[in-house]
């Protein structure tokens, strides 16, 4: 059990800056994120795209912004839990117990949800029957590639993940690569490699095809794929892999009893607390009259939510308002030596 004052859900810019604000007022926190790294949408959707409306920063990329925020919270040694999605929430006396998908447990005084538009999850096949094979013979990511040795694998997608895995697995498995069009979004060198392997018969490439149905009882037997013009092919497959990027979903947070309206959580604008005492929401995921989905608004919301957490974390103390330019306590927390 990880015991800390505040659990922040989401390591995007808003969550990271909230950790800073908690640190400044002397509260500890840990951060959970379903991605493998910090940055949220800034890193996942637009790492190289410029942002022009961060106050006092005329221009920076999503990646630069993330790195600067990580630098800014370094003095607080915040513990990160990547690749974890929060699932269960339980109130235990005055504290919250939270459990993640990977079984990590937290005991906290308050929770700040900074989850953006939701956690990033793999996009799935539209074909309904795919669900029953998921996790045993149909996957959206690969953990142990040795299970594919000498098997027939059908890979769907046209981005780097699909191409890279098709190339890699073609060494040890029989690979079919199926994509909805002739063009690919993955790197040109990988596209050329896949075409070469196809010509050499080391891989079978099917373009302008999409999955029509998937057939099998406990294990996949074959997939039927349909051409743009209507022709259907049946390909025997032991395993099916789908690489269609990521989509954002609210997930289990929906069941926590929060007031949710159009995929956002209603909050008050005094402390950004939700309808549940001790649970706060900030950034793109919160809504209130006048809400702007800007990073700068997330910073403001995080500063107020951090102060809102104080009374739950230190019920017997009174929070004193101080400036970092003059506060001895804040400067000590920042590790500034004079």
């Amino acid at each position, binding site marked *: 059990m990880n015991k800390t004052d505040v659990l922040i859900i989401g390591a995007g810019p808003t969550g990271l800056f909230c950790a800073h604000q908690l640190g400044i007022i002397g509260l500890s926190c840990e951060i959970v994120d379903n991605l493998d790294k910090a940055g949220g949408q800034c890193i996942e959707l637009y790492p190289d795209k410029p942002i022009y409306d961060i106050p006092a920063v005329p221009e920076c990329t999503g990646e630069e912004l993330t790195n600067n925020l990580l630098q800014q919270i370094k003095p607080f040694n915040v513990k990160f839990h990547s690749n974890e999605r929060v699932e269960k929430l339980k109130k235990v006396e005055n504290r919250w117990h939270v459990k993640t998908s990977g079984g990590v447990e937290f005991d906290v005084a308050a929770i700040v949800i900074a989850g953006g538009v939701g956690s990033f999850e793999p*996009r799935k096949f539209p074909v309904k029957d795919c669900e029953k094979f998921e996790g045993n013979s149909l996957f959206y990511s690969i953990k142990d590639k040795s299970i594919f040795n000498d098997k027939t694998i059908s890979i769907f997608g046209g*981005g780097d993940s699909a191409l890279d895995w098709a190339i890699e697995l073609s060494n040890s498995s029989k690979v079919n690569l199926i994509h909805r*069009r002739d063009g690919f979004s993955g790197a040109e060198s990988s596209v050329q490699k896949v075409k070469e392997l196809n010509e050499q018969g080391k891989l079978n490439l099917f373009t302008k095809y999409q999955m029509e149905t998937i057939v099998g009882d406990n294990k996949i037997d074959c997939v039927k794929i349909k051409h743009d013009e209507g022709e259907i092919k049946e390909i025997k497959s032991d395993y099916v892999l789908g690489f*269609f990027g990521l*989509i954002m979903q609210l997930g289990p947070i929906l069941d926590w009893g929060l007031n949710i309206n159009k995929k956002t959580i209603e909050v008050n604008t005094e402390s950004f607390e939700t309808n549940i005492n001790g649970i706060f929401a900030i950034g793109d995921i919160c809504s209130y009259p006048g809400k702007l989905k800007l990073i700068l608004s997330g910073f403001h919301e995080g500063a107020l939510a951090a102060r809102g957490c104080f009374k739950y974390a230190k019920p017997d103390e009174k929070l004193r308002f101080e400036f970092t330019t003059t506060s001895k306590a804040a400067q000590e927390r920042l590790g500034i030596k004079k």
Partner: protein
Amino acid sequence: MAKITFNTHDNNTYTVDVQNGLTVMEGAVQNDIPGIDADCGGGMACATCHVYVKEEWLDKLPAKEDGEEDMLDMAFEPKSNSRLSCQLTVSDNLDGLIVNIPSKQG
């Protein structure tokens, strides 16, 4: 100004006036039309504003920019008449446009 019609997968039809210069996605979001999520807010980074364009309109739309087709690879059940509605800027020429909204965005 253009009248744009959205047909949802459960057979509801919404016709709304959208100001020139806005995108079809913005027209849908401002009018609370269900089924257009637009998670990334128009950055061509999420494919959750995916629509199917009525065939007769396909040639009249602005051409796809680099990257739109790549994003459509990620969309739910893409077809040959798929577009991202955040990439369709409204003008008088689009008056009467009809699009179908897929059953899901992801």
